[in-house]
């Protein structure tokens, strides 16, 4: 009995790494094999690109599967490829070397897949070869004799179609064979990987040229067109922002209703007192006001994932290469910057794919100016409270336009900052482009769903952890010391948070922030969306008559001037209210100089822009 347990545990610890060229269908294969049994190294972790998951072989044995970043060779060109190379070479400090490498070949691009396989043979690890996308190759008119190729390679080989439900089963079966776990000491001929690749193809009867994917060429004729392509790109981005606001309304109302219902239930079933106040004013008001924005964040991520999966993103990067060149960057900076619209942290980590040091530094510096999804709760709250929900022309909502304007303000500021750096420090030589434009394909719902699920988990983990903790701390600071009987103002004004806020309010008075905002900005330094929950808590406790619950928007709409509301909106375009971003910058660039510089310049811009906004609106409405 006990030996069996040990046996199972040992098997569970067997580690298999998937290695292949970028866009070879490796990640789909990984999703197919592990299903929902996977974890993405968290943002705070080492690398966002390294995924691991549990898979079962045909006989039901558990194996840990690693999905490594795609690489063209074992001479890494950029930092993300270096991760893959380090892991398979056993040089990674974070991940032990795998017990077996599954080399994923793209059947439609055999020559270069085989080049990578040739260099993988030199590692001395057990190798299993997977021939993926055999269906696409056949559709393109390429017949591959799998048995013959297996004999030529002298390695266990299985054909898979990661898109089909049973498409990965041959790989599950072959991993049950104990022989594949033994490294083969095949004599490696001392010739170049490309010679080896060509020999293999010749021997397998595949010497003809590989057919070209016509569909992608036809799509590119339009999508890469300087005029039509650019128009399509801009409309695409604009539609996404409209959808984020219009499509999220129903699910947001549902979340609001659920929180209000829970809050009512607690108010009735608990005796009035500290515990009731903690749960309703602290936990529900705080966490509830952030949870409401989950639908919007998921819609934004949905579009980013679909664009990524379809193969469109590198095309967008190419269209923008010229524009990026004029501000001293290259198209390569586009994908990290686009990711920063979801969250600056994966965006900053994605700059690892930029080989040029100067370009990478500038991209990291302007990444926080891209409007991340954590700003959405703040923007949504303030826009909902201060911008009327009226239509301006067919299909355009004023609220959606303002949101679009805030995104544009971030982008324009980033352009200005990059230009200033270019004028001040020089542009340097043009950085290398060499960017693959993969075939277009329909995003698979499973892959998009898994990606969304992981985003939702990360967001909820934040709500459950950091935001809940800070909300409770803020509730405590806002509730104690308890105001004496007969205190004229709201009880929170007597508390620690209230007094601190009033001191800080002196600094923020010129830009129109009241002491409640000043209080909320302190925990809001941890993460932007925390400010919303903090405002929820502060106002729930400020109200002397009844529980405010989750209806924060009408309260601030009634209590703040329009100038204050807009000033806070503009503050959030710039202010680096996110410790995690600064910590990531420190880790990626090393040392405190870069994050300190970033914090100073962003807070400076935030203060200046808010001052300008506040003064203009006050003057204009007076």
């Amino acid at each position, binding site marked *: 009995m006990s030996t069996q347990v040990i046996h199972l545990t040992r098997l569970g610890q067997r580690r298999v790494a998937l290695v292949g060229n970028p866009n070879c269908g490796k990640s789909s294969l990984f999703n197919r094999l592990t299903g929902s049994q996977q974890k993405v190294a968290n943002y705070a972790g080492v690398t966002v690109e390294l995924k691991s998951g549990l898979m079962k072989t045909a006989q039901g044995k558990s194996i840990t599967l690693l999905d490594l970043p795609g690489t*063209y060779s074992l001479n890494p060109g950029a930092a993300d490829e270096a991760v893959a190379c380090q892991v398979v070479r056993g040089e990674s400090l974070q991940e032990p070397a795998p017990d077996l490498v599954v080399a994923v070949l793209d059947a439609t691009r055999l020559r270069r897949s085989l080049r990578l396989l040739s260099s993988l043979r030199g590692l001395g690890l057990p190798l299993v070869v997977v021939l993926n996308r055999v269906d696409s190759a056949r559709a393109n008119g390429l017949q591959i004799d799998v048995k013959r190729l297996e004999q030529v390679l002298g390695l266990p080989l299985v054909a898979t179609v990661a898109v089909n439900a049973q498409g990965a089963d041959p790989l599950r079966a072959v991993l049950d064979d104990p022989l594949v776990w033994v490294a083969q000491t095949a004599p490696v001929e001392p010739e170049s990987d490309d010679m080896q690749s060509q020999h293999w193809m010749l021997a397998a009867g595949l010497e003809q040229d590989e057919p070209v994917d016509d569909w992608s060429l036809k799509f590119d004729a339009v999508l890469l067109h300087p005029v039509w392509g650019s128009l399509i790109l801009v409309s695409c981005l604009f539609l996404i922002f409209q959808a984020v606001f219009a499509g999220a309304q129903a699910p947001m109302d549902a979340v609001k209703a659920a929180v209000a219902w829970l809050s009512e239930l607690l108010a009735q079933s608990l005796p009035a007192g500290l515990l009731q106040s903690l749960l309703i004013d602290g936990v529900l008001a705080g966490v509830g006001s952030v949870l409401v924005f989950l639908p919007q964040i998921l819609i934004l991520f949905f579009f980013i994932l679909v664009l990524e999966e379809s193969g469109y993103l590198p095309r967008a990067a190419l269209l923008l290469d010229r524009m990026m060149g004029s501000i001293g960057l290259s198209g390569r900076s586009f994908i990290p910057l686009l990711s920063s619209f979801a969250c600056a942290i994966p965006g900053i980590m994605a700059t690892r794919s930029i080989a040029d040091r100067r370009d990478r530094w500038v991209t990291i510096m302007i990444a926080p100016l891209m409007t991340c999804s954590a700003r959405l709760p703040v923007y949504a709250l303030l826009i909902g409270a201060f911008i009327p929900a009226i239509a301006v022309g067919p299909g355009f909502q004023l609220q959606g336009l303002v949101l679009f304007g805030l995104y544009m303000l971030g982008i324009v500021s980033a352009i200005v900052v990059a230009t200033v750096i270019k004028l001040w420090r020089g542009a340097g030589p043009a950085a290398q482009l060499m960017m*693959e434009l993969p075939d277009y394909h329909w995003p698979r719902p499973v892959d998009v769903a898994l990606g969304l699920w992981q985003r939702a988990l990360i967001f909820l983990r934040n709500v459950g952890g950091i935001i809940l903790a800070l909300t409770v701390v803020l509730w405590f600071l806002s509730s104690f010391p308890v105001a004496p009987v007969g205190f004229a103002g709201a009880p929170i004004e007597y508390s620690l948070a209230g007094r601190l806020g009033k001191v800080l309010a002196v600094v923020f008075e010129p830009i129109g922030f009241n002491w409640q905002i000043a209080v909320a900005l302190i925990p809001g330094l941890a993460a932007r969306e925390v400010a919303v929950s903090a405002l929820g808590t502060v106002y729930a406790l400020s109200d002397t008559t009844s529980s405010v619950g989750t209806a924060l928007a009408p309260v601030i709409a009634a209590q703040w001037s329009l100038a204050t509301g807009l000033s806070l909106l503009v503050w959030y375009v710039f202010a680096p209210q996110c410790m995690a971003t600064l910590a990531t910058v420190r880790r990626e660039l090393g040392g405190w100089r870069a994050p300190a510089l970033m914090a100073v310049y962003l807070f400076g811009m935030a203060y200046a822009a808010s001052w300008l906004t506040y003064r203009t609106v006050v003057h204009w409405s007076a």
Partner: protein
Amino acid sequence: MSSPTLNESKPKVWRRIRSLRTDGAPASEGLDERLQRLADLGFVPNERVCVLRRSWWKGGALVVQVGNATFALRDSEAACIELVA
């Protein structure tokens, strides 16, 4: 008489790669890495290449088909790729 290079090639015409150029190209920092990288991406001798699209701007990026893969290259990068005349 040097061989034609990819950046000078007419669009939509299939050619074959002769070699990656180590001479003639302006000696700049990181040239060796650039050639290694091009070879890793699949710009290897005897492979078919074709310029699919040129930028409307002088010196802008090219869209290049090599074998069955498509890449965006800078003009200076394409200049390293020598074609069979």
